[in-house]
């Protein structure tokens, strides 16, 4: 309501923005040729014994993962290959081909270099290889001893807080070896339902062999699977898809017979396959990154070279952003449909959602400002970059009971959504401080106008963000009352959400406080105020114990980059302060 009321600060800011901005645009032809690099890097051709079509057909089969989610093999194979080699395809083979072939011919694949060993010199010494990708076999000595055994044992006893890069790398590598081992032994292929199991457990061929399932139908479908395997191997080159399809259908029929009630619908499965093949967020990361550099270049060019008329094309830049945003929305929507719940329920999802709200904020409030759009893109690219890092698991995960509520959709969307808005304010604040540093008497008119305009955008964004986080926290209280029987309990996460609200309330009320009214003060505060959001979003989960940290564990050390960033930003703001005072 605050937004649409006629004489609110919000509407008056929007009006001022309109006056301040004359017709502005930019040239944007360069970026049309962006597409995500599909990573064709086949130096050592490996011949798979599974053809692409058969692997794709197999990729559509449903399996049960260790968390109880049913998903197509294609999703699993993608996850596994990304974990092993940080690639989505390898040697010109799809992840499905590699996965299936590894399951069928372990002996052959043990010698194929597909595990990324990292670049730690100690580990390279132990493994005796400096290659980027090395084979499973290379992790074992000639008498089949695991080369990393002692190191892994040691690393596991070290407290996470005290783990060095070596221990971390060792643990990560050990995980990869375990995954590879599970593929080779066929343990990941949990696709056969135990007949009439009330828990709807599905088991792998390896499990069936050990369990000696009495029920013939399961054994039958296992044999079908085996015959399918042989078919595939025979059918090298000219494959017989009709034949293989028939066997696959038998397995699906068995699955349907026992577990049809808990299995996802076929349309959901195809949506998941589409989501996998589109790789929306990986592509967007590259697109946002490239586009942000180009736009930022044009923006600075326009500010410091008064003669250049880049503003004319701003409108086109906005349209382009809108199109990319539509793609982002599609990805998020697909994920929502596939998972059957709002796509902001784990770390990875909340990041892509925050990137989405950042784009939303930028599209709404910076329609006519190149600077605002650049800041938006820089931010969206950064968030997706962070989301793509290995510590965030992009898997779709089931929810713990307390989160199974429509309140999750409402509360978390507002909370996490506000972070996007507030972060945009912080990035604009930083951009303004940089502009202040480069202000000279010569370009003063232009920069001052730009800074003013960006500050207004930032204030609107922060108002939006504050509104969202306040309403979100309020509704969080309502949810808390329904699940824990109290509105507010000073839990660490609640408290820090409130700290965020208070700090941003302060920043937005600074214009009423004598001495804190300057443009510099506002931009400085909007940059450093964001520290409270970082604390709420990451800090609380990692450093404080409470009800909201569902993935608790030993505390993790503050990464050194945080300190470097803080020092750089502090320096930036000090230099900006003196430069700005000088010019003014």
């Amino acid at each position: 309501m605050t937004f649409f009321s006629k004489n609110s600060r919000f509407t008056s800011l929007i009006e001022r923005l309109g006056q301040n901005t004359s017709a502005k645009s930019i040239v944007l032809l360069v970026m049309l040729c962006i597409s995500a690099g599909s990573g064709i890097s086949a130096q050592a051709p490996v011949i798979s014994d599974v053809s692409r079509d058969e692997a794709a057909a197999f990729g559509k089969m449903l399996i049960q993962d260790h968390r109880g989610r049913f998903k197509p093999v294609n999703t699993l194979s993608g996850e596994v290959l990304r974990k092993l080699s940080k690639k989505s395809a390898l040697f010109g083979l799809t992840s499905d081909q590699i996965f299936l072939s590894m399951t069928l011919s372990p002996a052959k694949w043990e010698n194929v270099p597909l595990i990324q060993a990292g670049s730690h010199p100690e580990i390279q010494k132990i493994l005796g290889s400096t290659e980027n990708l090395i084979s499973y076999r290379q992790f074992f000595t000639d008498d089949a001893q695991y080369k990393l055994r002692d190191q892994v044992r040691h690393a596991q006893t070290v407290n996470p807080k005290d783990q060095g890069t070596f221990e971390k790398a060792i643990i990560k590598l050990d995980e990869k070896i375990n995954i590879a081992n599970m593929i080779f032994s066929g343990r990941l292929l949990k696709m056969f339902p135990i007949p009439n199991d009330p828990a709807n457990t599905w088991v792998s061929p390896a499990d069936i062999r050990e369990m000696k399932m009495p029920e013939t139908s399961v054994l039958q479908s296992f044999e079908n699977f085996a015959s399918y395997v042989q078919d595939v191997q025979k059918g090298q080159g000219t494959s017989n898809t009709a034949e293989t399809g028939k066997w696959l259908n038998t397995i699906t029929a068995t699955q349907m017979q026992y577990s049809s009630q808990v299995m996802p619908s076929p349309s959901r499965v195809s949506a998941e396959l589409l989501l996998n093949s589109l790789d929306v967020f990986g592509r967007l990361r590259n697109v946002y990154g490239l586009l942000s550099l180009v736009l930022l270049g044009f923006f600075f060019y326009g500010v410091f070279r008064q003669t250049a008329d880049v503003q004319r094309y701003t409108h086109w830049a906005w349209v382009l952003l809108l199109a990319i945003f539509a793609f982002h929305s599609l990805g998020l929507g697909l994920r929502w449909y596939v998972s059957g719940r709002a796509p902001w329920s784990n770390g990875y999802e909340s990041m892509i959602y925050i990137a989405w709200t950042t784009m939303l904020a930028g599209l709404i409030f910076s329609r006519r400002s190149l600077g605002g759009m650049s800041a938006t893109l820089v931010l969206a690219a950064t968030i997706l970059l962070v989301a793509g890092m290995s510590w965030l698991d992009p898997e779709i995960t089931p929810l713990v009971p307390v989160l199974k509520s429509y309140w999750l959709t409402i509360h978390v969307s507002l909370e996490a959504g506000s972070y996007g808005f507030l972060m945009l304010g912080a990035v604009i604040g930083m951009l303004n401080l940089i502009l202040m540093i480069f202000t000279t008497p010569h370009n003063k008119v232009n920069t001052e106008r730009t800074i003013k305009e960006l500050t207004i955008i930032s204030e609107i964004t922060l108002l939006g963000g504050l509104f969202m986080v306040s309403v979100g926290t309020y509704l969080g209280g309502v949810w808390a009352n329904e699940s824990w029987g109290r509105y507010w309990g000073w839990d660490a996460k609640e408290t820090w959400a409130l700290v965020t609200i208070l700090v941003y309330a302060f920043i937005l009320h600074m214009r009423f406080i004598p001495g804190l009214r300057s443009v510099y003060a506002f931009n400085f505060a909007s940059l450093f105020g964001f520290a409270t959001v970082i604390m709420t979003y990451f800090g609380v989960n990692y450093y404080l114990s409470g009800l909201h940290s569902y993935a608790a564990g030993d505390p993790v050390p503050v990464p050194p980059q945080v300190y470097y960033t803080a020092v750089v930003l502090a320096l930036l703001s000090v230099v900006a302060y003196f430069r700005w005072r000088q010019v003014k």
Partner: protein
Amino acid sequence: MNSILTKVYNTVFSTSAAGLYLLIFAIAIGVATFIENDFGTSSAQDLIFRARWFELLLVLFGGTIIANIFRFRLVQQKKWASLIFHSAIIIIIIGAGVTRYFGYEGMMHIREGKAANSFLSTETFLNFKVSQSDKSYSFDESVFFSTLGNQTFEGTYQIGTDIYKVNVTEFIPNPKEQLTEQQGGKAVMKVVIAGQQGREEIFVNQGDRVNINGVNFNFTPELLPNAFNVVVRNDSLYFATDAPVIQTVMATQKTDTIPPSDYKPLRLRSMYVLGQSGFVIGEFKASAMMSIVAGDQKMKNESNAGLRMTIAKNGVVQNNFLTGQKGVEGMPKVFDFGDSQMAVSYGSKTVEVPFNIQLRDFIMERYPGTDNPSSYASEVTVIDPSQGVNMPFRIYMNNILDYGGIDFSNHLLIKTKQVHI
């Protein structure tokens, strides 16, 4: 006079002051989360959330909002949105105050199939029971102790013609026993075993015979069969057994089997295995006293608290030490004054409600093929004969039961299918 008041009003409720309140508020609660992390919720509440100054801060904060609503003429200028947003904060502050002073919280434990009509308060109490010849009196006192905040309590009660002075002199977070060397003490050894809850420490005094984890420890000069006999010679321990013992020196991992024999030197911090059980003699003090010291400074929900108390009846002083914890009824300790006894316990209070809640069924669904729960629900029946009520209800996420002015929500699942609501 009037001008001074105006001046004070303008200072205390100025925009600058409002900004200051916001910042103090933010910093205070931010700091509180760290206090909570290191010293427990009770300390954070004691020092900040429930402190007087914090309440004053909130009142001032609310005051500045009201003052500035008028100063900026939000009503006259028809800034309805802003007005609603700011008034909402005031309503929230008032609501928080009401909950703080008039609300209460507790846990009702009901086993599947059973009913309950009482719950345990979340607040902690000192519960007193005085027995005098043929009469007894019970009363309680709400107390709040924390590692960093309040650690003492004083109260004076008159019962009949007697005056009881109750003093809590010390609060000890997570109390544990510790051996300290002291002249004129006893010889004590510390036996460490791997129990069901992990590492367990048991102190054995000279002259004791105890069975720990299946091993008979005999710390007397007498040599007993089927026992781990320990004696002190020249301020060191010696042991003897009638069965072979496996001894592993931790530092070198060197293992020896020691055949049954007469007394041999016992190695501290070495692993001994006698029969099926392994143990380590972790510590030995030739002359020591047991004392109670604070363990972890952090008071968690399930942490034990120790209280040193003195009670004086008409000037006759008795000392005692009692322990208790939040959410559990305390074990009473008796202060005996001869003709009367005062039993004191520290912990939750049982509060009765005028109706019964029966747990008919507790339902937990799991994700397919795993042990991970996907949802909980409780089928309950409210039985209130006085109102003629017999109401079945299903409590689940987002569906809480509200009866008799009390809200019930599912809390936790315990393995024995006991539900806390």
